[in-house]
């Protein structure tokens, strides 16, 4: 057992942290949130140049790494800085799906471009009924000659508005299947929704969008399996972002409480504030520890549904708890757009919906426990 990060990992963390602190301070985050694109193409290029995306894929496919912990570290730092970018959509949701199930050609082509910062992707799974279950995908993909034709609506597709390509889960005669689609296809229309996370969540409509048989990701009808396997990794990566945000929220709150005085004393001296912050610390520390353990399990191929679902359910709950108390301790200033704790309060809620909310994962745990 060795519960420290190694030197290379610490270096990666430091470089990501320094880059984001310098290149995207919180004021820029707010600006990006309010922008139509919701991210900075210039910074995206720099991230690629620094090798962040390369770190996430094996050498064969244009990367140089394969340790899942590198993704965890990058996501944690992204979380700390509340940094908006299509990294999670592109590298994790789509990248891991391709890595899991893509053909050699797709891997070389797509992952190579992602690694080089030249391809942004988005995953379209949820539909109008908002079910998180991959098996509930019902949008039809009808075989017509050599092509599949997609018709229908996908909801809550993050970064569809800025993606070059989409992976779309749709139902063929064989079952749920994943299709690689050009985001600029004229049959596709995309509308960015107004969400609490201000984070490029889109509705995407498909009208007679044609997909060649070569553009299936994985076998026809195998979409549910692929998505579930990908989810194991993606859930952990998203939780890393949340845990990073929780850490930053805790730290900024503790620091504010030491400096802010009321009644002639720092508010962090009041017992009720101390108890709030003690609980916040416990929440953060237990989530972080468990995150690393589950990430290790994923890396070792030992991940279980119970563990990833327990992680997502608890991190969702505790991130909300930490940011809620964080705002409360900040007082009025914490509720404003210009103060940073609010960025995290909003993200805690937004991220709850990514890859299944607490009730969804809670039920998965019960199933995994044999009930």
């Amino acid at each position: 057992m060795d519960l420290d990060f190694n030197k290379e990992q610490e270096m990666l963390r430091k470089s990501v942290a320094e880059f984001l602190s310098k290149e995207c301070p919180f004021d820029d985050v707010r600006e990006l949130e309010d922008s139509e694109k919701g991210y900075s193409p210039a910074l995206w290029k720099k991230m690629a140049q620094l090798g962040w995306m390369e770190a996430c894929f094996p050498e064969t496919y244009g990367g140089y790494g394969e340790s899942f912990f590198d993704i965890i570290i990058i996501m944690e730092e992204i979380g700390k800085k509340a940094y908006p970018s299509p990294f999670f959509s592109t590298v994790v949701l789509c990248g891991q799906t391709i890595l899991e199930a893509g053909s050699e050609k797709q891997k070389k082509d797509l992952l190579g471009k992602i690694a080089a910062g030249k391809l942004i992707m988005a995953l379209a799974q949820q539909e109008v009924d908002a079910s998180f279950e991959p098996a509930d995908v019902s949008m039809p993909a009808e075989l017509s000659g050599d092509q599949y034709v997609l018709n229908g609506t996908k909801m809550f597709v993050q970064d569809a508005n800025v993606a070059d390509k989409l992976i779309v889960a749709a139902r063929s005669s064989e079952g749920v299947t994943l299709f690689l689609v050009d985001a600029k296809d004229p049959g596709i229309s995309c509308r960015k929704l107004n969400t609490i996370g201000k984070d490029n969540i889109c509705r995407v409509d498909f009208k007679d969008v044609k997909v060649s048989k070569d553009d299936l990701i994985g076998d026809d009808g195998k979409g549910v399996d692929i998505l579930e396997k990908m989810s194991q990794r993606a859930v952990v990566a998203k939780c890393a972002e949340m845990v990073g945000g929780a850490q930053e929220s805790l730290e900024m709150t503790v620091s504010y409480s030491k400096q802010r005085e009321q009644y002639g004393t720092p508010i962090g001296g009041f017992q009720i504030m101390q108890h709030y912050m003690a609980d916040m610390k416990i929440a953060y520390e237990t989530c972080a520890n468990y995150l690393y353990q589950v990430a290790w399990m994923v890396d070792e191929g030992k991940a279980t549904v119970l563990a990833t679902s327990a992680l997502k359910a608890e991190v969702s709950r505790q991130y909300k708890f930490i940011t809620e108390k964080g705002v409360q301790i900040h007082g009025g200033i914490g509720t404003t757009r210009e103060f940073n704790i609010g960025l995290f309060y909003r993200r805690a809620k937004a991220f709850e919906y990514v890859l299944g909310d607490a009730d969804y994962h809670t039920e998965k745990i019960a199933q995994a426990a044999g009930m």
Partner: protein
Amino acid sequence: MDFSLTAEEQAFEKELEVFFEAEMKNAPPEFAGGLEGIYANEEGNNFHKYMAKRLGEKGWIAHAWPKQYGGMEATIMEQMIFDEVRGRYGAPGIDAFGVGMFAPTLLVGATEEQKERLLPPIAKGEVFYCQGWSEPDAGSDLASVTTLAIRDGDHFIVNGQKTWTTGGHYSDHMFLLARTDSDSKRGKGLSVFNVDMSLPGIEVRPLLYMDGNHIYNEVYFKDVKLPAYDLIGEEGKGWDLTRQTMNFERSGQGAYAGMRVIVDELIGYMKNTKRGGKSLADDPINRKKIAQLIIDCEMGTTLGYKIGWYQSKNDAMNIIWSASSSKLLATELAQRLSQYATEIMGSYGQMEDDPEAPMGGHMANLYQFCKGMTIYAGTNEIQRNLIAWVGLGLPRLKFKP
């Protein structure tokens, strides 16, 4: 023990229902209610002011005031019925600051001239107020305000900064707490003023809420010349007056009625919505959440009656802790309501104002705005302290600096 309404009270309730039913048809589409509804945009504020005028015509703004100031000397019970029905319809028109806080302050502490001059416009729904209390370094610890109002003949010259000034950008007047003795400390040397917001030297700057809405403001005073006749109460005795006003601030009736209506709206949404082929209304976890919200609304409503009962008996001590309790219940219920609603809606719960958002996206906004509620008007921590001190007689420890 009798919770029944008299025939007159029932008739009044009916009259109010007919009135609000009709008037709410004039609301802008997807009107949100609450402070966000009336201060975040012009349509909402216009509707608020229109409704205030209509209520003023009916005499319902100043319902319980003495007749000479435009009131109707209604009973506490009638006022409660009014609050409850208004809450049920989510109707604006009552200025929380002018009607809810400053008018009672005037009734308690103003001169006859001031009452006659200032109260009737409020009663008619023609003048709107904001609150000039908090400063960057004086939040919960309000007694440490530093804004100065220094006497200069028959004027006071004001310099300083106020913050969290809810609705300041739509207000005609402010009631200001400022230090009239520059050597004084804490509760001493403070005074209360009626301030015309159009005076030269007053600058109102938006302070955006975390969701981007403009509700709050910062208000800067630079050599603002206040006429001395707008000093309310005795010079230097403003702290005592303000502490009374704090209690006016903390009743919050009608909130439960409003939230109960939202719960019903949510139930309707659930019954009409399927996820993974199953009705949201059939999910036992969702059902449990809804049941708890209903319980909370029920408990809060009954506590509201009890506060009214205490008020009708002028039972000051019981009013203090029970009003604090109601502030806690109502604001924590708002948190729970927005939490549960946004959970029940699944991914739709993250949608704010958007054509596809369920319930107008108000629940995602409330999820954010409710955080302000547990902070403003006396943080919930302060309220719990008060309940312990006043309601339970627990000792107040002093700290060594």
